[in-house]
């Protein structure tokens, strides 16, 4: 174990704990707040792995915008303080879900672990300059497509939120 490994495992355990609580807690808003813990620790993981820009964008876009949107949606819809059993699934349902998830983890581990290898390797730090050059050089077309996607989703969100037809008689 190297110092980087220790940092990685520390942030990783924190992220896993946050993620686990995010999918199991009965407090609806707490789920989103645990997601913040998970995403924040993942930013730490990225930092340890030498991807500084990814870590910062994770904080800026994921925690600053996506989670805020999720929290906004939770607050606008019904989300009481305290545990809520309205939307709870049955234990059998959860058991099946856990089995499927565990199977998925086992499958992925079986495939990925041999590829990862067990030896220590030199960490490649991505420099911001190289990243910028590649992003607007090699990846320019996907980048442009992505901006098109963002525009489309913006328009789509507006169109969906504006439409009153689905709500029927009641005017919201």
């Amino acid at each position, binding site marked *: 174990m190297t110092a980087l490994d220790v940092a990685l495992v520390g942030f990783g355990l924190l992220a896993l704990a946050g993620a686990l609580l995010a999918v199991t807690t009965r407090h609806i808003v707490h789920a989103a707040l645990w997601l913040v813990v*998970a995403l924040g620790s993942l930013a730490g993981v990225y930092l340890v792995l030498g991807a500084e*820009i*990814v870590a910062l964008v994770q904080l800026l876009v994921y925690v600053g915008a996506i989670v805020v949107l999720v929290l906004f949606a939770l607050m*606008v819809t019904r989300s009481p303080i305290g545990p809520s059993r309205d939307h*709870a699934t049955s234990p059998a349902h*959860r058991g099946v879900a856990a089995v499927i998830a565990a199977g998925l983890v086992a499958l992925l581990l079986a495939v990925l672990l041999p590829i990862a290898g067990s030896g220590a390797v030199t960490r490649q730090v991505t420099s911001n300059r190289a990243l910028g050059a590649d992003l607007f050089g090699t990846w320019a077309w996907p980048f442009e497509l992505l901006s098109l996607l963002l525009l489309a989703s913006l328009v789509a969100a507006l169109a969906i939120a504006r439409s009153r037809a689905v709500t029927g008689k009641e005017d919201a």
Partner: protein
Amino acid sequence: MIHAWPAVVLATCLIGIGAYGVLARRNAVLVLIGVELILNGANVLFVASGATVSVPSTAGSVLPLFIITIAAAEVVVALAVVLLAFRASGIDVTEKS
């Protein structure tokens, strides 16, 4: 120096937890949280492979940036749908109304 396997285990577990969240939740927004965790698992895998390959490459950082952008677009549309659905009936994805 760094080992690759802890990051791979982390990514796999994140994907597993996210899958559990998608399957076991009924509140639409909570399902979305599971999806976010799966996407993050993929991101960790990308960044980890970018950091541990022998040939320097920026793809390990570029692709996560793309995924984060796609996640933002996805969340915007999904939440618009959720709010509309909430206005119409309720927030339960399994509810028939």
